[in-house]
């Protein structure tokens, strides 16, 4: 992993227990599918660089939250410092889709005064035969909340890259336009470092002075 990136975005991944949050993230960050995975305890952390334009890299810090209700008080604490989020449901589990609304309400309360750019993710799309949620209704729900909708599969590696990079691009555009700004005390977006650029006038002066050798 390289240390050079333009921005660092913190993304949070939420949704009901067992919809496949950790598997999706591991597919994205580790490139493999973990058949068996223990329920996430509290919160887990992953990171990956994404190149959104040639030479322009964004570091994603991905917070994988526990879906289990008992950890909710922990995961809530993470909404505030996230700039983006993937809200997952399992297309074979109608209940997890019905809870999307609840998840959005919950984040709204705890993210104040900031905002999270969400994408709605219908996960496990490889299990199309067991589908309980149609693409159409999911798209409708997403549109109602101003979100994009995408269907993914960690097992078959479908749309995993796209889900993360599209969200990253959207956030990047908002940052470029100034709709999202870097703020002191907020970890959602941080400025990265550009290689071989002198960072302060002090430094210029200094290197010149010291270079009299």
């Amino acid at each position: 992993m390289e240390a050079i990136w333009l921005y660092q975005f913190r993304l949070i991944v939420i949704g009901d227990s067992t919809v496949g949050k950790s598997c999706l993230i591991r597919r994205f960050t580790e490139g493999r599918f973990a058949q068996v995975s223990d329920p996430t305890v509290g919160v887990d952390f992953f990171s990956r660089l994404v190149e959104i334009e040639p030479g322009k890299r964004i570091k994603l810090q991905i917070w994988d939250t526990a879906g289990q209700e008992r950890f909710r008080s922990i995961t809530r604490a993470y909404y505030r410092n996230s700039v983006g989020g993937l809200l997952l449901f399992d297309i074979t589990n109608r209940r997890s889709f019905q809870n999307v609304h609840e998840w959005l309400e919950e984040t709204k309360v705890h993210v104040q005064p900031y905002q999270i750019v969400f994408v709605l993710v219908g996960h496990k799309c490889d299990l199309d035969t067991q589908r309980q949620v149609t693409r159409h209704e999911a798209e409708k729900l997403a549109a109602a909340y101003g979100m994009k909708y995408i269907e993914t599969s960690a097992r078959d590696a479908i749309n995993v890259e796209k889900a993360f990079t599209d969200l990253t691009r959207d956030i990047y555009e908002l940052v470029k336009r100034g709709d999202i700004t870097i703020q002191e005390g907020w970890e959602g977006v941080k400025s990265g470092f550009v290689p071989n650029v002198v960072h302060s006038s002090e430094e210029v002066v200094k290197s010149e002075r010291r270079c009299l050798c």
Partner: protein
Amino acid sequence: MSDKDDIETPVITEASSILEDGNCELAPNPESAEQSAKPEVNSEPVVFTRKRPESRPSIDLETSEVLPVEASQAAGKETVSKDVPQTGWGYWGSWGKSLLSSASATVATVGQGISNVIEKAETSLGIPSPSEISTEVKHATGETNAKDNANSSPMTGPFGVFSTISTAVQTTGRSVISGGLDALEFIGKKTMDVIAEGDPGFKRTKGLMNRNSTLSQVLREAKEKEELWTSNEVTVETDKKTHYGLLFDEFQGLSHLEALEMLSRESEMKVKSILNSLSGEELETLKHELEQLKEAFSLAEFCEEEEEEKEGDEDFTKEVTELFSQLHVSSKPEKLARARNNAYEWMSTSLGKPLEEKEEGEKQLETEKTEQISKNSIEDIHAFAIRSLAELTACSIELFHKTAALVLHGQKQEVTALERSRALSQMTIVLCKELSSLSKEFTTCLTTAGVNEKADILNPLITAVFLEASNSASYIQDAFQLLLPVLEISLIENKTELPEA
């Protein structure tokens, strides 16, 4: 004083010195661009074109008379505790403890810079072979003079050497050199103060640099500085290999630490408010019980010397797993055990260095050794050692974080907070001992592989490994302390049957 000139944030200093290297030094000495030199350049913006540490031993020797002055200055700031046995690195555990228990995580702030200076301390600890020092002195004398000129520093003689050392370290450095283990104690305890006082470059962050700053803040600072620095360097990939802070973050150690801090803070507030709401006998009973928890967290037995020099592979995994089962949390230390075993495997297979329990095979391996060692340069070993330490530490902190989450929000268990505290305390000791023996293994590898290297090349690498191991132990012990409020609130909740938050 030349350090006035050099006063800037260390990162910038380092960065600019790199520029300087690039502009002034690299041209006439293309070989200085060799990546083997990188770890050194990293840690210290020395103007040398070759490996930097030539001057170090000479610092010791030349300044031995002058140092008392410096030392007394330092003493004004801080009384160094001298009760550490001067028995060398073999007693790593002992100084590790004193370092650590005093929130010495701060050492990381100075990062590589300080490791250069510590080297000096290390020299007096006997790690480098003293026979090589005389050779170095010759080098050093020449280098020192050259450097003084280059710096146009008013400082001459012994102090001139320092003017090129990362500024943050300068102040510390002088004090440090005054003596072996005391110096390490000193670094551990007072690095932050010294930096804050002696380096206005830290202005911006000074607010953070006090005892109230959290471990993760300090580490984050260090990491960000390293990032800033590496981003100024062309060969990022090479350099990053030895940046403990960056690696620690890459293994998500920083995030887990922050998460643990968050849980710890919340718990602490809850404990306080509950204590405030109680009175009379109820309060006294509770206080007494909390006191017992605190005792379990005091790590009193850490410095006991009953420890075996070396434990087998299985023992560590078994021990940690056993302790974990005593905690009755559903999390398992597999990741940690894997990281640890990978480190040993790397050493035994790719280096051909036999583990001690495989001594029978040593002779056979001996023949292959020379060949294999050439494949792994001392820089490779050093980089892998730093990486392993960072990984092991990150895994340990992740375990503590998960433990905290499960203690707070897991299913009710038939285990008391006190029992858990004791198991965790024991685990901290095991982890720190493991870091100690791992670092010893790595340095043995380094010594073996670097048998033909000059001490001034080898010693800084050895020192860096020991330093980061001690830092690692510090982080783990600090993280362990963060668990106290978590167990306190767990004790209170079990006792008073408060509903879980």
